[in-house]
C-alpha cells in the first residue's frame, strides 16, 4: 500500500497506460507544461513528449473532435476537459459524433476515446464550473459513463476506460483531487458494469456515485451507532449499470436511496428507481428515495452553495426518515 492523492492516482493510471501502449495520447487545456489544472498530468510531457501530451488551445469542440478523428485512425486519445461543464461546448462532438459513429457506420469503426472531466460543487466556482453532468451524458446510447469514488477506484476504472473500444466519459470529483488515500501498489483495471459493495448492511441500500460514496459511508458509520445498518453500493459506472447487484441488495434490505450529486430532476436516482421497479416492487417496504442537489443552479457564495450540496448529514437525515427519525 502507498499513500497518494486522488489526482496522483489518476496521473499514475495515465502514466502506466501510456507506458504500456504507445497509442495512448493525452490532450486538453493545460495538460502539458503545468501538468493539468488539477495536477492530474504532472510529469507526462517530460516523459512522453509534446506529441503524446498536447496542450491545446481553448477550443473544446475542436480538440474533442480531433480526439474522435485520432480514435478513428488508431490512437487512444485521453481528452481532458478542465470542467465537466465544458462538455456542453463540445457536445456535438461527444454526443452526435463520438457516441454515434460506431452505430452509423454499421460497426465499421469504433471510437476508443476517453474524455476526463471534473464534476461537483464546493469551490465557490458558481453555476458554470460546478455542475455534475453524468445523468445528461448517460441519456445517450453509444457512450459509457464511469464515475469513480476513491483514488484506487479512479486509477483502476481509468485504465479500463482507456482500454475500452467505445467512447467513455470519465467523471472525476474535483473536491477529491487533493485528498490522500491509501491505495494498492499495483492497481489492475476494474471492469465496467460491476458495482462495488463499499459497506455491507441489512437495513437499507444506499446506491451512491463519486464522492457521495464516501459521504454515504461516513453517514453509515453514524447510523450504525444507532442500530441502522446501511449497505452502501459504489455504482462505479452508470453506463453500463449493474442492475443485479442493486436488485440483490434491495431485495435484502427492502429500502433504496440513491445518492448522486447531480440535480434531482431526470437524474440517475429516478432512472435507477424506475429501471429496477419491476424487479423490486414487492420487496420494498418504503418508497425509493433520493439525495441530490436541488433543482437550482449552483451559486457562488459559500453561504448559498454549501446548503445545496448533498452532504453526509443529508444522507444521514434521509436514511433516518425511513426509520421514524427526522
Amino acid at each position, binding site marked *: 500500500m502507498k499513500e497518494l492523492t486522488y489526482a496522483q492516482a489518476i496521473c499514475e493510471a495515465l502514466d502506466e497506460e501510456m507506458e504500456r501502449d504507445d497509442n495512448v495520447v493525452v490532450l486538453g487545456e493545460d495538460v502539458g507544461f503545468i501538468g493539468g489544472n488539477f495536477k492530474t498530468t504532472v510529469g507526462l510531457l517530460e516523459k512522453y513528449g509534446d506529441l*503524446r501530451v498536447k496542450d491545446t*488551445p481553448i*477550443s473544446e469542440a475542436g480538440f474533442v473532435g480531433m480526439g474522435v478523428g485520432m480514435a478513428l*485512425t*488508431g490512437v487512444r486519445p485521453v481528452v481532458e476537459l478542465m470542467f465537466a461543464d465544458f462538455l456542453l461546448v463540445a457536445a456535438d462532438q461527444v454526443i452526435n459524433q463520438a457516441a454515434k459513429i460506431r452505430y*452509423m*457506420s454499421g*460497426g465499421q469503426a469504433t471510437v476508443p476515446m476517453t474524455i476526463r472531466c471534473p464534476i461537483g460543487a464546493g469551490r465557490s466556482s458558481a453555476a458554470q464550473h460546478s455542475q455534475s453532468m453524468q445523468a445528461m451524458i448517460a441519456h445517450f446510447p453509444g457512450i459509457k459513463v464511469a464515475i469513480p469514488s476513491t483514488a484506487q477506484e479512479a486509477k483502476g476504472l481509468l485504465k479500463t476506460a482507456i482500454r475500452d473500444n467505445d467512447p467513455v466519459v470519465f467523471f472525476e470529483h474535483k473536491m477529491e483531487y487533493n485528498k490522500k488515500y491509501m491505495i494498492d501498489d499495483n492497481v489492475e483495471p476494474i471492469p465496467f458494469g460491476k458495482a462495488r459493495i463499499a459497506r455491507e448492511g441489512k437495513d437499507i441500500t444506499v446506491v451512491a456515485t463519486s464522492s457521495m460514496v464516501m459521504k454515504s459511508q461516513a453517514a453509515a458509520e453514524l447510523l450504525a451507532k444507532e442500530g441502522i445498518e446501511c449497505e452502501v453500493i459504489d455504482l462505479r459506472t452508470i453506463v453500463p449499470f449493474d442492475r443485479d447487484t442493486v436488485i440483490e441488495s434491495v431485495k435484502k434490505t427492502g429500502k433504496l436511496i440513491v445518492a448522486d450529486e447531480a440535480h434531482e430532476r431526470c437524474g440517475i436516482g429516478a432512472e435507477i428507481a424506475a429501471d429496477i421497479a419491476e424487479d423490486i416492487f414487492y420487496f420494498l417496504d418504503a418508497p425509493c428515495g433520493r439525495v441530490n442537489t436541488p433543482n437550482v443552479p449552483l451559486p457562488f457564495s459559500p453561504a448559498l452553495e454549501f446548503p445545496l450540496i448533498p452532504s453526509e448529514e443529508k444522507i444521514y437525515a434521509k436514511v433516518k426518515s425511513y426509520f421514524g427519525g427526522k
Partner: protein
Amino acid sequence: MNVKDYSKEQLMDFYETMYKMRRFEEEVFEFYKKGMMAGLAHLYMGEEAIATGVCAALSDQDYIGSTHRGHGHLVARGADIDRMMAEILGKKTGYSGGKGGSMHIMAMDKGILGANGIVGGEIPIATGAAYTAKLKKRGQVAVSFMGDSATNEGTFHESINMAAAWKLPCIYIIENNLYGISVDIRDVTNTPDLAVRAKAYDIPGIVVDGMDVLAVYEAAKEAVARAKHGEGPTLIECKTYRWQGHHVGDPAVYRSRRSETEKEEWQARCPVTTLKSEMCKADKALEVVIQEIETKIEQEIQAAVKFAAESDYPLAEEAFTDVFA
C-alpha cells in the same frame, strides 16, 4: 482548361470518375421520385470536379472526411457503388447495414472517416486523422471536405487554427456552391472569397474554379506536397454550383433572387461535359474510348441499382447491434 498537359489515361480516369458520380446520383434521384428511397438525399451533381480532382491527388492510405453531400467523395475514393446504393435505400447490404443512409455513408477501408450530418462536424475529425498521421509519421494526409456554410461554424476556425499551429498534414476543401439550404452565402458573409480566411492562420488560401477538374487537381496536388513536406495545412476554395436544391425534395426557388439565369449559366459550365468536349477537341479518337467507358459505367450503375433494389431490408432487431446501449 489545358488537357494537353495530361496523359490520356489520366484524363480518362478523371472523366470516368465524374461520369460515374453523375450517373450514380441520377439513379438516386430516380429512386426518390419512385418513392423507393426513404428520407432525403443531398445530391452532389454539378460539383463532381472537386471530389474527383482532390481525390486524384491522394494515395490509398490517405484519409478524407465527408459531408451530408458526400456521394461524390465516396465514388472518388473508389467506394463500392453497390453497397453505397444499398445504404441509400436502407438495405442490409449497405455499407452501414442501413443504419446510416445517404448522409452517413462511411467506408473505413477506403479511408473515408465518415460523411457527416452536422455541418462542420467533420472538420475536427479529419484534423484528428491528420494529427495521427503526424504522430505516427505515416506520411499520410487528411482531407476535410466542407460546404461554404461550414466555414461559419466554430469548428472551422478551431480546427484550422490547430492544424496551422502544429503543421498538421490536413487539406481543407471548401465546396462553395453558394447556398446553405436557401441562404445565399453572399448575404451572410462579408467577403466574396472564403479562402481569404487562410490569412488569419498564415496558411495558403487558394481559390480555384471548382468546375474545372484539372484546376482542382493541380491545387490539391500542391497542397498534398506541402502537407507531406511538413509545411502544414492548405485551404482551398472551389467555386461551384449544385444542380439540385439542398436535397432531392427542395425545388430551390430561392436561386432566382439574384439572377433568373443563374442555374443555366452554371450548367453551361458542367464539369463532366466540359472535360469530355475538351478531350474530344484535343483528340477526336477519344470519342470512341469515352463511349466505351460510358457503356461500361452504365453497366456498373445498372448493376448497383439492381443490387440495391433487390437486397433485403435489415431485420428490426438489427437496430440493437453495433452499439453499446
